């Protein structure tokens, strides 16, 4: 079926409008990070002063490092635990698997405020002081389900025979795991890790209820701000730049790899 010119134009216009909508607040944040004045509604001139003041704002910088540390640790731990769990579950008895997966879904489906409060009540009742540890633990608990949800489908598609063959040929279970199974599900693991990472970065409510003295994530910092402070815009702009860079790289690498393998082919 041929696409008429009109429908092509319409299709592009529709998608462009949606993209504009999605990028409107981001553009707005970036624009006002360069504002001379301190208003969030009147742009009075171009200045880099907010970038300067951002680096002098220790609490803000700390919130950025805290967010990153928590996200990295939570992602690493939840990816490992989640992958191990998924592999284990794929070989477990059906009934155990379905029960565990249902429970696994709870943090995903539950409102985040319910998850947050549940965890807080748990920590308090065992008198575990709220702080960095509880923050990380709570992030791990909502990240693991996403890893499992991403890895499980891929595991189901696997051909068991390959791993069985490896074992028959004398490989240890560990080797069968690392040399056969994991490479096959690696894309799903990476995808799960990325999702876990973005979930942790985006979180507010769970962090809000489960941290202690002096520990702020970016979202908590912004939430507690009283007046507008355009250093937040400066910080946002840098985050946008960093994320864009990472996403470009992530997409560029397979493309470069592709080109390399193409060159190698005769």
């Amino acid at each position, binding site marked *: 079926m041929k696409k008429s010119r009109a429908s092509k134009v319409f299709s592009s216009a529709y998608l462009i409008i949606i993209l504009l909508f999605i990028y409107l607040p981001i553009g707005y944040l970036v624009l006002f990070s360069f504002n001379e004045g301190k208003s*969030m509604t*009147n742009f009075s001139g171009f200045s880099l002063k907010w970038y300067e003041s951002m680096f002098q704002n220790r609490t803000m910088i700390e919130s950025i490092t805290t967010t990153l540390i928590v996200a990295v640790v939570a992602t690493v731990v939840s990816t490992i635990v989640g992958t191990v769990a998924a592999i284990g579950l794929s070989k477990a008895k059906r009934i155990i698997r379905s029960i565990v997966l249902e429970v696994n879904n709870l943090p995903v489906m539950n409102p985040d405020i319910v998850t947050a409060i549940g965890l807080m009540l748990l920590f308090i009742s065992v008198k575990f002081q709220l*702080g960095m540890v509880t923050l990380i633990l709570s992030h791990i608990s909502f990240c693991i389900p996403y890893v499992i949800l991403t890895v499980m489908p891929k595991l189901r598609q696997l051909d068991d025979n390959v791993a069985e063959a490896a074992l028959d040929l004398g490989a240890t279970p560990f080797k069968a795991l690392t040399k056969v199974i994991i490479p096959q599900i690696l894309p799903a693991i990476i995808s799960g890790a990325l999702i876990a990472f973005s979930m942790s970065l985006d979180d507010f409510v769970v962090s809000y209820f489960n941290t202690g003295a002096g520990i702020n994530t970016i979202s908590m910092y912004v939430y*507690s701000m009283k*007046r507008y402070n355009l250093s937040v815009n400066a910080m946002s702009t840098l985050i946008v730049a960093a994320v864009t860079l990472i996403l470009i790289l992530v997409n560029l690498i397979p493309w470069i790899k592709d080109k390399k393998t193409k060159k190698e082919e005769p």
Partner: protein
Amino acid sequence: MTKKLTAVLLLICLALLPVCSLADGTLNVMNYGEYIDEKVIYDFEKEFGVRINYTFNDTPESMYTKLQTGVSYDVVVTSDYMIDRLIKENNVQKMDKSIVTNLDQLSDSVKNLYFDPDNDYSAPYLWQNVVLCYDTTKIDPAKVEEKGWSILLDPELEGHVFLYDSPRDIFMIGLKALGYSMNTESRDELMEAYDWLVKMNQTIHPSFVTDEMIDGMAQGEKWMAMMYSGDATYASMENEKLAVWAPLDGTNIAYDNMFIPANAANPELANQFINYVLDYPNSMLITVETCYTSPNEKVIEDVTGPGGEFEGIDSYVPRTGYEKDEIYTDNELLRTETPELLVKVKLQ
């Protein structure tokens, strides 16, 4: 498997490192947001060779919740009635007055407070009252001064008013407008105030916000706001059309003091910090940055005097000695009922 396990454990230990650094050199401070000049923090750290972990809370209630969960803070800044409650619950330790010597710099207006008359448990940090801040070109000052809080029943103001989303302060308005005490323990009076507020909400449809109103009033978004005097001072300095008025029905005067929780990890350093903040130069920095009233006698004199930062600005120092003004006390009825009642006001 074991390799992976060790890797995981190592990572968890790395994450715990920040927690492990809770040496003698750390001070955990909890304060309202944007209620200090960061220079004071940096200077203190340099002078004493320590590190300050600075946390924010937006209300005394959320601070109380955090304390309840067992988190240990060394110095906390919060409002009078909450300190009153915490002292009664034995959650506050006495200050060491041999360290906190700068108490002698305090103005008489902040001394002899009901909850801590001798400053055994707390030291004043900033103080304020609740006022009306309004655009003189849109509303006649004579009308505001005559009607007091009841001006909020004026249909002409519909859609043009900010109210600070604090249950206690909003009920204060209702109670005062009806001539009752804002610390009432009478359910009937509280419910009358509720009805008054429902009427108010349905007449003028105010916008319940928190600190957004500061920039909002400074930029002329609305005609009138019920604000804390420090924010009103700031807004009126940014926007000369604004005037500030403390209604003659009476309002509340609030004292934000520093105290040391009973479970503070580092009480000695906490006392040092309190003493440091009370001192003239630091109190000056804080008042100029926040626009709230300093408790320091000389600071008040200097900023309101000739060439002072707040010269000629009446809203800077709250009205004192007026018998209809009151200070909050810890009141179980108000504490448990007002948040829910305010939600209901908004839903009518």
